[in-house]
C-alpha cells in the first residue's frame, strides 16, 4: 500500500463548514423552500393516558387558509405491521404511530395536524381544535412501579444485557470488612438540541418525495418511510446536510416526519412540520433509572464484592434498553459480581439514547460509590481506582485493545494539581466559599459500524468524498476532508465532503461515537482505491518515472505520486489521468469492524475527570470553576474539533450534575417545565475553565487508530462534580441535579 504523509491527520484545523455556519448560509431541515409549501402545526394531548372521546376540528377548518386538519378519524391508511414502523435503532416493541387511533399513550402525544397555507394560520387554527378525553390515571413515577419491573424479554440490538453473575456477590458483600451500599438517581433529562425537530417534505410529483428531515442519519428516515408508506427507495430521497444538535434525539425518525410525509402524500403538495420547543419534550428523554450500587471491600479498598442493580423507566409500548450496569465490571476488577438491569412501564414516550446513553447513568452512580469507598477506606480516590484497575473486560473475558486510563489519571491529576488537595471534606476554602475537588472515571464503548463512502476525483484535481451519515456538530465534514486530502496528497481546499443525503453511499446514523472510525475508514478506503487506479495509470505512461516501482513504494503528496525514497521521480495526478484517458475517477468502498480484532479485544475509550466547585454553603450556590478532562481515545484526527467534543460533553455533564431535571406532575403524567426557561441547561455564566487533555493511545481496531469522542466527555462528569460537592461540604448527594435545596437541606 502506498503511504501518504499525514499532512492534515492529527493537526488542528478550523471547520470546513465554519464559514457557512457563521454567515447563516448553512440550512437546516426546517429551512428548505419548496414551491407552494404548506405548513403543518401539531396539536398535542393534554392527558397522559386514556382516549380521545371527541375531537372537533370544524372551527379550525373554517379559518381561511387552512387546508386540512388531520386526526385519527380521517388519517390516510399506512402500513399495518409494527415491523414497518421499526427504524434502524428502534428498541423492541410497537413503535408509536401518530394519529393512529383514539388511544393516548403519553402527555403531549400528537393528536391532530393542522395544515395551512402559512405557519401562523396553522398555529392559530391549531388553537381552535377542540378535544375531549376519557382520561385514566397515568403512572409516570418509576419509584411506584419498581415492584413491577421486568427483565426485557427481547434484547435491543447492539445493547449488551448484563453478563451472568460470577462469584457470589451477596455473600462477599455481607462478609466484606468495608461496605458501601446506596441508591443513586438522576432526573429525567431532555436532549433539547437548539434546533427543534422539523421535516420539510417536497412533493416532486408522481408520489416522489424529497425530504429534509432533522435526523442524525438520513438512511434511517428513508428506511422508515419506505416501511410505513410503502415507498420504494428511489421514490424518497432524504437529505439533512446540517443538524442543529441531536445528542441522540435525532437517531430515530420522530413524529413530525411521519406527519409531514403523510400530509404531503395526501395533499399532493409540499409540507413542512416544525415542532415547538414544548413539543420537544414529547418524544424522547434520558430515562429515570433507580440504581443501587453495593461495593464490598477489604480495609485497603480492594474490591471483594460488586453489585449494580438498575430499574429503568420505559414506555408501555417499547422496551427501551441501554447499557447501565455493565460499566462497573468493565472498569473495576472484582471476583464477585452481580449486575441486573430491569425495566418498568410508564405512561411516557419511549426514552431514547441521549449522549452516552446508559454510561452517563451507570457511571455516575458507580463513580460516586467509588468516591464513598475511597472515604470509607481512607484512600485517595485515584489510588483506590488504580488498586482496582482492570486490565481485562470482565464482562466479555477479553483484554482491552488499548486502555490508557492510567495515563489519564496521571496527566489529569498533574494538570489539575490534584496533589495539592487536602482530602478532608470541608478543609479547603476561598473566602466565603467552600472549595471542593472531586474526580471520576469515564468510559464509553469504542464502536465501528459498517459504512460505505464514495470518492470522485476529477481532472482539475478536485476530490469529492462523502456518504449519507450526518455531521451533527461533531466535525465530520472536517475530519473526512482531512482524511481524504491526506489519502491523495491534496490540499484540504481541493476536497469537498458531502454528507446527509441518501443519494450518497450508505452509512448509518451518526451516534455512538462511531462515525470517525466508520466513515473515516470508508473514505480512506475509497480514496486508496482511487490512488491505486491513479498509480496504475501513472505507471503505464510512456517513460513513466514510476516504472518498475511498486505501489507500496510511492507516496501521494502535493498533488503528485512520487517515489518515496526518490521524490524527484513523480507524476502529477492530472498527468496520470490524462495518460489514462479519463477525466474522472470514482470509487465506493465499505468499511466495517475488524471481526478478528473484535473477537480478541474489547474496545473502550476512557477518561479521568477532575472538577473544582466553589460553594456558598449558607445560600446553596454551587459554581463549577474548573474542570480537567483527560481522555484516552486512540488517535485524534483534529485536536481542535476533538477538543470541542469533550468541552460539549463536560458542559452537558455539568448541566446534569447541577441543573437538568424534567419535573413531572405525576397526577397529570406531564412534564411541567417543558421549555428552555424552566428546564435549565447551562448558560454562559455557568461555565468556566475547562481543560482537555488527549492522552496518547495506540489502538489497532481500525486502520486509523481512532476510537471516537462524541460521548466520552460527558461520562463521569456528573460524578466528578458530585464528588467535588462532597469534598467541599461533607454532604453526599446521591440524587441529581444538585440544586440549592439539596445543599442547604
Amino acid at each position, binding site marked *: 500500500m502506498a503511504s501518504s504523509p499525514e499532512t492534515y491527520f492529527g493537526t488542528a484545523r478550523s471547520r470546513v463548514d465554519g464559514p457557512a455556519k*457563521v454567515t447563516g448560509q448553512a440550512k437546516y431541515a426546517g429551512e428548505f423552500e419548496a414551491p407552494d409549501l404548506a405548513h403543518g402545526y401539531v396539536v398535542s394531548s393534554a392527558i397522559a393516558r386514556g382516549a380521545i372521546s371527541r375531537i372537533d376540528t370544524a372551527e379550525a377548518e373554517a379559518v381561511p387558509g387552512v387546508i386540512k386538519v388531520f386526526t385519527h378519524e380521517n388519517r390516510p391508511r399506512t402500513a399495518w405491521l409494527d415491523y414497518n414502523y421499526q427504524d434502524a435503532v428502534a428498541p423492541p416493541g410497537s413503535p408509536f404511530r401518530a394519529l393512529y387511533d383514539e388511544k393516548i399513550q403519553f402527555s403531549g402525544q400528537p393528536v391532530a395536524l393542522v395544515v395551512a397555507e402559512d*405557519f401562523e394560520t396553522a398555529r392559530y387554527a391549531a388553537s381552535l381544535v377542540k378535544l375531549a378525553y376519557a382520561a385514566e390515571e397515568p403512572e409516570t413515577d418509576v419509584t411506584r412501579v419498581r415492584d413491577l419491573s421486568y427483565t426485557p424479554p427481547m434484547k435491543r440490538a447492539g445493547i449488551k444485557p448484563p453478563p451472568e453473575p460470577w462469584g457470589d456477590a451477596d455473600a462477599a458483600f455481607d462478609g466484606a470488612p468495608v461496605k458501601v451500599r446506596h441508591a443513586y438517581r438522576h432526573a429525567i433529562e431532555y436532549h433539547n*438540541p437548539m434546533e427543534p425537530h422539523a421535516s420539510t417534505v417536497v412533493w416532486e410529483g408522481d408520489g416522489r418525495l424529497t425530504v429534509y428531515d432533522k435526523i442524525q442519519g438520513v438512511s434511517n428516515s428513508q428506511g422508515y418511510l419506505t416501511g410505513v408508506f410503502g415507498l420504494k427507495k428511489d421514490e424518497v430521497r432524504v437529505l439533512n446536510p446540517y443538524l*442543529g444538535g*441531536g445528542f441522540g434525539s435525532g437517531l430515530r425518525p420522530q413524529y413530525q416526519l411521519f406527519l409531514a410525509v403523510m400530509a404531503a402524500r395526501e395533499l399532493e403538495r409540499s409540507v413542512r412540520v416544525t415542532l*415547538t420547543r414544548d413539543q420537544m419534550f414529547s418524544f424522547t428523554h434520558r430515562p429515570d433509572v433507580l440504581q443501587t450500587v453495593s461495593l464490598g471491600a477489604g480495609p485497603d479498598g480492594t474490591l471483594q464484592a460488586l453489585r449494580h442493580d438498575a430499574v429503568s423507566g420505559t414506555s408501555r409500548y417499547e422496551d427501551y434498553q441501554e447499557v447501565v450496569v455493565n460499566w462497573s465490571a468493565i472498569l473495576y476488577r472484582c471476583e464477585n459480581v452481580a449486575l441486573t438491569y430491569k425495566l418498568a412501564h410508564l405512561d411516557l414516550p419511549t426514552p431514547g439514547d441521549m449522549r452516552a446513553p446508559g454510561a452517563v447513568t451507570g457511571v455516575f452512580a458507580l463513580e460516586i460509590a467509588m468516591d464513598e469507598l475511597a472515604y470509607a477506606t481512607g484512600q485517595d480516590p485515584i489510588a483506590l481506582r488504580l488498586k482496582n484497575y482492570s486490565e481485562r473486560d470482565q464482562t466479555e473475558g477479553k483484554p482491552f485493545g488499548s486502555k490508557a486510563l492510567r495515563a489519564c489519571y496521571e496527566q489529569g491529576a498533574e494538570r489539575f494539581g490534584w496533589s495539592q488537595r487536602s482530602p478532608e471534606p470541608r478543609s479547603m476554602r476561598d473566602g466565603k466559599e467552600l472549595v471542593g475537588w472531586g474526580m471520576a472515571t469515564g468510559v464509553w464503548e469504542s464502536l465501528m459500524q459498517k459504512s460505505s463512502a464514495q470518492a470522485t476525483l476529477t481532472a482539475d484535481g478536485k476530490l469529492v468524498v462523502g456518504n449519507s451519515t450526518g455531521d451533527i*456538530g461533531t466535525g465530520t465534514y472536517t475530519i473526512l476532508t482531512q482524511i481524504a486530502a491526506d489519502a491523495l496528497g491534496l490540499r484540504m481546499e481541493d476536497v469537498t465532503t458531502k454528507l446527509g443525503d441518501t443519494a450518497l453511499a450508505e452509512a448509518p446514523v451518526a451516534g455512538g461515537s462511531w462515525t470517525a472510525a466508520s466513515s473515516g475508514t470508508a473514505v480512506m478506503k475509497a480514496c486508496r482505491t482511487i490512488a491505486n487506479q491513479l498509480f496504475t495509470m501513472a505507471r503505464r505512461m510512456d517513460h513513466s518515472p514510476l516504472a518498475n516501482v511498486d505501489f507500496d513504494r510511492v507516496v501521494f503528496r502535493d498533488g503528485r505520486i512520487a517515489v518515496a525514497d526518490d521524490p524527484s521521480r513523480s507524476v502529477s495526478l492530472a498527468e496520470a489521468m490524462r495518460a489514462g484517458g479519463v477525466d474522472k475517477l470514482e470509487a465506493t468502498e465499505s468499511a466495517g469492524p475488524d471481526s478478528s480484532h473484535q473477537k480478541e479485544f474489547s474496545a473502550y475509550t476512557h477518561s479521568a475527570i477532575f472538577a473544582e466547585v466553589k460553594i456558598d454553603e449558607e445560600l446553596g450556590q454551587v459554581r463549577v470553576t474548573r474542570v480537567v478532562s483527560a481522555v484516552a481515545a486512540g488517535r485524534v484526527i483534529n485536536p481542535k474539533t476533538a477538543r470541542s467534543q469533550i468541552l460539549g460533553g463536560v458542559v452537558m455533564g455539568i448541566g446534569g450534575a447541577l441543573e437538568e431535571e424534567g419535573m413531572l406532575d405525576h397526577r397529570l403524567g406531564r412534564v411541567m417545565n417543558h421549555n428552555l426557561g424552566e428546564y435549565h441547561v*447551562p448558560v454562559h455564566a455557568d461555565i468556566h475553565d475547562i481543560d482537555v487533555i488527549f492522552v496518547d493511545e495506540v489502538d489497532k481496531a481500525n486502520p486509523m487508530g481512532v476510537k471516537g469522542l462524541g460521548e466520552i466527555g460527558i461520562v463521569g462528569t456528573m460524578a466528578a462534580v458530585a464528588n467535588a460537592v462532597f469534598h467541599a461540604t461533607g454532604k453526599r448527594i446521591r440524587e441529581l441535579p444538585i440544586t440549592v435545596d439539596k445543599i442547604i437541606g
Partner: protein
Amino acid sequence: MLIESGSPVAADTRVEISLTINGEARTLQVAPWTTLLDLLRERLDLTGTKKGCDHGQCGACTVLVNGTRLNSCLALAVMKDGAEITTVEGLARMGGGNGLHPLQEAFVEHDAFQCGYCTPGQLCSAAGMLAEGHARTRDEIREAMSGNICRCGAYTNIVDAIEDVMQSGAQG
C-alpha cells in the same frame, strides 16, 4: 394598508411597513401577529436567524434592531416599522468588509460552535454586546452573553472568540 395613529387595523388586514434589512430598504405587507423572526425566516428567506424556542428563552433568534440586540421571536414586525435590522447575513457588511465580520472570523478560528444552530444568535448578540460596551472581563462577557444558549457547549470557545475581538479592538 398604511397605519394611522389611533385607528384600529382589523385583524385580517395586512399592514404596510418599511424596514431596512441588512442595508436594503424594503416595503412589506405584514399581518399584525407576524413576528420579526417569522417575517425573516418564512417570508424573506433569511433563515440565518434561528428559531430555537420562539419564547425568548434561548437567544437563537437574536438580531440587531437599530444596532440593539433583541430577541426577534418576541418582536412583532409591525411594531418595528421604520427600523434598521441586521441579521447574521448582514453582519459582514456591518463589519465593513467583503469577507467575514471579525466576530465571524474569530468564531471559526476558536471553534466557537459545533452544530451551528445557536451561532447566528451568538454572533449578533456578541456584536450587540460589544456595541453596548458594558462587558470587559470574562465574567462580564459570560453574564452578558447568558441570553444565548449553546447546547453543544461551546461556551468557553465563544468567550475566547469574543475576548479576542474585544482585545483587537476590531468591533466592526
